[in-house]
């Protein structure tokens, strides 16, 4: 099953989105990477990397994020992965809460990452540059 990482500026928002998604698909590995290391609002590349590694399998990982710099930090985190991990990680610009839930449900149905990306296209909100 595809693992899911939720990247938010807020620890609470990331955890909340994780909870909502996990309720619909408890069997799926979902990690929340919210807030900075010192508990402020913001995103932290190290916690994103940790979250990716936590839910990673060869089925891949889908990253869902909230605003602006969350994307840049997610992108940098992906660039820092080893090549064979990197090619199995995708970032989606789906609305965070809806996207996390839809991704979790579809991952629970054992759909591959490419299929899940297609399922998410209805809730894309063009927040990637």
């Amino acid at each position, binding site marked *: 099953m595809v693992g899911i990482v939720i990247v938010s500026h807020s620890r609470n928002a990331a955890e909340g989105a994780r909870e909502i998604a996990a309720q619909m698909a408890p069997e799926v590995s979902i990690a929340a990477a919210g807030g900075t290391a010192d508990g402020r609002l*913001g*995103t932290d590349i*190290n916690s994103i990397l940790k979250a990716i590694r936590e839910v990673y399998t060869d089925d891949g990982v889908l990253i869902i994020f909230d605003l*602006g*710099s969350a994307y840049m930090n997610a992108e*940098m985190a992906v660039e820092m992965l080893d090549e064979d991990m990197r090619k199995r990680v995708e970032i989606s610009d789906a609305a965070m809460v809806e996207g996390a839930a839809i991704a979790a449900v579809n991952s629970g149905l054992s759909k591959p990452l490419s299929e899940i990306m297609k399922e998410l296209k209805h809730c894309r909100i063009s927040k990637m*540059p």
Partner: protein
Amino acid sequence: MVVNGKKLIEILDRIADVIEENKLMLTELDAAIGDGDHGINMSRGFHAVREKLKDDDGSDIGIILKKAGMALVSNVGGAAGPLYGTAFLKAGAVVEGKQTVDVADLENMLKSALEGIKMRGHAEPKDKTMVDAAEEALNALNSSNAAGESPQQAIKAAVDAAYLGLENTKDMIARKGRASYLAERSIGHKDAGAASFALILKTIFDELYGQESS
């Protein structure tokens, strides 16, 4: 102008102080049209740079800049982290293994840093971002170097151009970052990222040539 690793670490150290002194100004600029954390984010980032370089022997300019970039990426929290982080990493990549840098290297570093910022943020000139300060600075440095002016004149020209670029952001409509949510209402405010960029460049000049001559 020849800067060795030890001097570069001193400059970065001074940048941490200057950012700290200007924390409120940067935060206020950001609060007007963004999320209001640029001052504290930059302050945290450059203090982490200072910490990371504390025991560096200063032997490789490229390594110093890479360490600084990684400290910024890991500690800033806002958009400035990946943007300045990428800028320092890219600048470091063009001077890898060098023990000293001169004004021609500085031009290469700035060029590479700007490319990195544009790549990471997908911003272009006139988007009301740090690119508007950085692009003006690079062009001025390039013209001045090409005209055979002294390093001091060239870097001074770059600083002045960065501040001009910063002023110009005031009349622009933000097209990147949180400020873009405000669209036309972002007009009339200067961009915080362009302000920190100009401030960093000015600090480099002041450290090299003294504040009196700036």
